[in-house]
């Protein structure tokens, strides 16, 4: 065995020491210095997963580190959300917050282990327009026809959802509430996921459906399904003939809309929040990101942490009030 020349040893020590020093300062000052884990609380292919993967594909240019999407599924988004809620407050574990797991879920189920606002808001990202649809050969030509039929024959019509605590159920329920009808004014038939609910309508097994537009857009454009109303503030670009709920006189229904936002664990350091808000401002102007969002049927809607907070408060309060009124709150 050959011995190392003695002059190499101090040099090695110096390199090691400076590396340690450099490493330490990097951790403290320069966020991010390693890849960031972005938790999607629902499975691959869902709205939260796609939102996370589109963000992750452009974010590295603006944030300077790779963003890795990890699906932590289970309990209607509760498992993944709770994981981020309890994660280290260093900005390396973030959450793709969704309307289901961060607003409807906590509003209807106080036993969920986190509070809806016990996170650091980094920014709202997108809205997913929500539509009321019927089959093309259905006798209901307009939203008014559908409302009239529900009123005339309480309990006779049926609608498909992806479970009781989802916006697919909240839409029709809020409509019944506005109309002064009981919760069973139409029969709720739950399916696994929005796709299953849409298939049930396509097959003519239920009468109507309130759902994310992206799920049914192709079938609406092909004339297999008829959209009666959208809940976006303005008419949706791809469906210029479909009226908004505000035009139809149901502005309260605007609350029913899908959204994704970027959250971190509570009390994130200021530099982390600053880094992300600056990056999101730039991403809002990024052509690739905007293009991907539009193609997925979403509306790009990047907002500051303060605006996000107001928006989320409003969401939580409406769902909580509706849940209380309808006796949907879990004890």
């Amino acid at each position, binding site marked *: 065995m050959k011995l190392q020349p003695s002059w190499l040893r101090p040099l090695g020590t110096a390199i090691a020491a400076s590396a340690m020093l450099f490493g330490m300062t990097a951790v403290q000052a320069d966020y991010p210095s390693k890849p960031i884990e972005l938790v999607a609380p629902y*499975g*691959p*292919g*869902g709205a939260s*997963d*796609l939102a996370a*993967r*589109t963000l*992750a*594909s452009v974010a590295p240019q603006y944030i300077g580190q790779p963003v890795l*999407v*990890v*699906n*932590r*599924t*289970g*309990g*209607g988004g*509760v*498992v993944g959300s*709770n994981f981020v809620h309890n994660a280290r407050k260093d900005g390396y574990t973030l959450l793709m917050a969704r309307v289901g797991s961060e607003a409807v879920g906590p509003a209807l189920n106080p*036993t*969920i*282990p986190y509070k809806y606002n016990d996170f650091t808001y980094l920014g709202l990202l997108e809205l997913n327009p929500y539509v009321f649809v019927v089959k093309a050969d259905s006798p209901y030509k307009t939203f008014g026809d559908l409302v009239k039929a529900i009123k005339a024959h309480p309990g006779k019509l*049926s609608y498909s959802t992806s*479970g*009781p*605590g989802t916006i697919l159920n909240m839409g029709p329920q809020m409509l019944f509430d506005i109309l002064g009808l009981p919760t069973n004014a139409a*029969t*709720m*038939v*739950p*399916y*696994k*996921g929005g*796709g*299953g609910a*849409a*298939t*049930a309508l*396509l*097959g*003519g*097994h*239920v009468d109507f459906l309130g759902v994310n537009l*992206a799920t*049914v*857009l*192709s*079938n609406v*454009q*092909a*004339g*297999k399904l008829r959209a009666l109303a959208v809940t976006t503030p303005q008419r949706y670009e791809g469906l210029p003939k479909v009226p908004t709920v505000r035009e139809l006189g149901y502005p309260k229904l605007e609350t029913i809309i899908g959204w994704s936002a970027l959250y971190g664990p509570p009390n994130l350091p200021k530099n982390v929040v600053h880094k992300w808000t600056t990056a999101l401002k730039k991403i809002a102007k990024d052509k*690739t990101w905007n293009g*991907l969002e539009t*193609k*997925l*049927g979403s509306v790009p809607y990047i907002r500051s942490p303060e605006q996000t907070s107001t928006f989320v408060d409003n969401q939580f309060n409406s769902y909580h009030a509706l849940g209380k009124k309808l006796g949907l709150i*879990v004890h």
Partner: protein
Amino acid sequence: MLETIQAGFAMFLTVHNVVAIFGGLVVGVVVGAIPGMTGTMGVALALPFTFYMPPITSILLLVGIYKGAIYGGSIPAIVIKTPGTPAAACTVLDGYPMARKGQAGKALQMALYAGCTADLVSNIALIFFAGFIASFALRFGPAEYFTLITFSLTIIAGVCGASLTRGLVSAGFGLLAATIGLDLVYGSSRLAFGSADLMGGLNFIPLLIGLFALPEIINEYTRRQSGHVATKVDRSSVTWGEYRASLKSILRGSLIGVVLGAIPGIGAAPASFMSYSEAKRNSKNGDRFGEGELEGVAAAEAGANGVTGATLIPLMSLGVPGDVITAVILGAFMIHGLTPGPTLFQKHITEIYALFWGILFSSALLLLTGKVAIRAFARLGEVPNSILFPIVIVLCFYGAYAVNSSMFDVGVMVGMGVLGYFMLKFDIPPAPFLIAFILGPMFEDNLRRSLLLSKGSFGIFFSSAICWFFIALTVLSVYLVVRRNMRERTNRRRALADAAKAK
């Protein structure tokens, strides 16, 4: 028409596309072969890369991963009794006994040939009958699903092994495990004891690994060491005659796969089990199923791979994903402006033909990829247990953790492993547990959906021809099982009486 087909071919035939589908298949086979890595994970990880590729290239890459993974799942199922995918659990039944006999290579080859044949049948169904099959699938309402699932439950009798009672006990445990979590209709939690993890229900992959792989290992280590008995390695290949002998089961399995694949939400696992039990019932080697019968491997893999082309039918023609993996592929379609659904065939017919060419091509490439993979993996069966088993244990823990990065899942796997060990000791087969676990929730959900729609009237289950068809099949299937059991019992009694007389 002919011109668009030609234009599609020209669009498909680029170096990028061929490399994409070949690369996808290779990645898929590797991902499918590692326990705990699923095709879904592979497709989801590859999705962001496809954002910057041309549409056809990116979809072919994802479809390649999907198909590769379904086949790849059979490799660890045969060699180390650790199914990489739920569908491969059925391949374990005959594949692992074959590996124990030193015929791992042969089992892997049969799995590949059956898989490629079924894949081709499924692709042809997609290309020629997509519209017809899609409109048929739409007629499946909750009541039709319910009768189909009821019939599917009778396949439990086909994988019970020696004792029907023990099989039913196993199925009962499976149903019980499936009830854990939130119920679909009211969202009330069942057997969750306030734990957020349990509210999500038990995860598939950890349960699968725990139930099949761990018991074998625990059994090996708790047994008195009798010295290592080397299995004689049989390097013979599947002959044309053997393939021909299984061809009927392979084709039947492919068709079962096509039908179950086209109906959204059923998936590859029920298809492989149904194909297996139908093959067992009809084959003249039926009695030897479960002891390392080549035809059993063929039937299981044919059912699983028959699904792969057909799941694209509801996706492309209705815009509805049948399972999680096609949901991710749906995302890829949309990102490239090819929104699946009825308009897809009107607006993008050239692209569709290009895709079809690529998908057809994939069956041949799968054969090639599989052959290379077999060479690498078949030798694993020759590794002595003292080296192999520790590696498998590490893979089990890694696999259970990797699916959801959750220690809870590792706990589920260990718990299932202990349960599986006792089931092994008491000779209770694990396959009925798994089938009940998969079908149980579908059975319950569709029963409740039907009764919600009919306002509690059971008449809904007799309201359509499809319902009557599956009810008739169920009755027939139960009758055949009962008759076979009665016959076996009288035969046994007669044999005993004869033996007594001879004394």
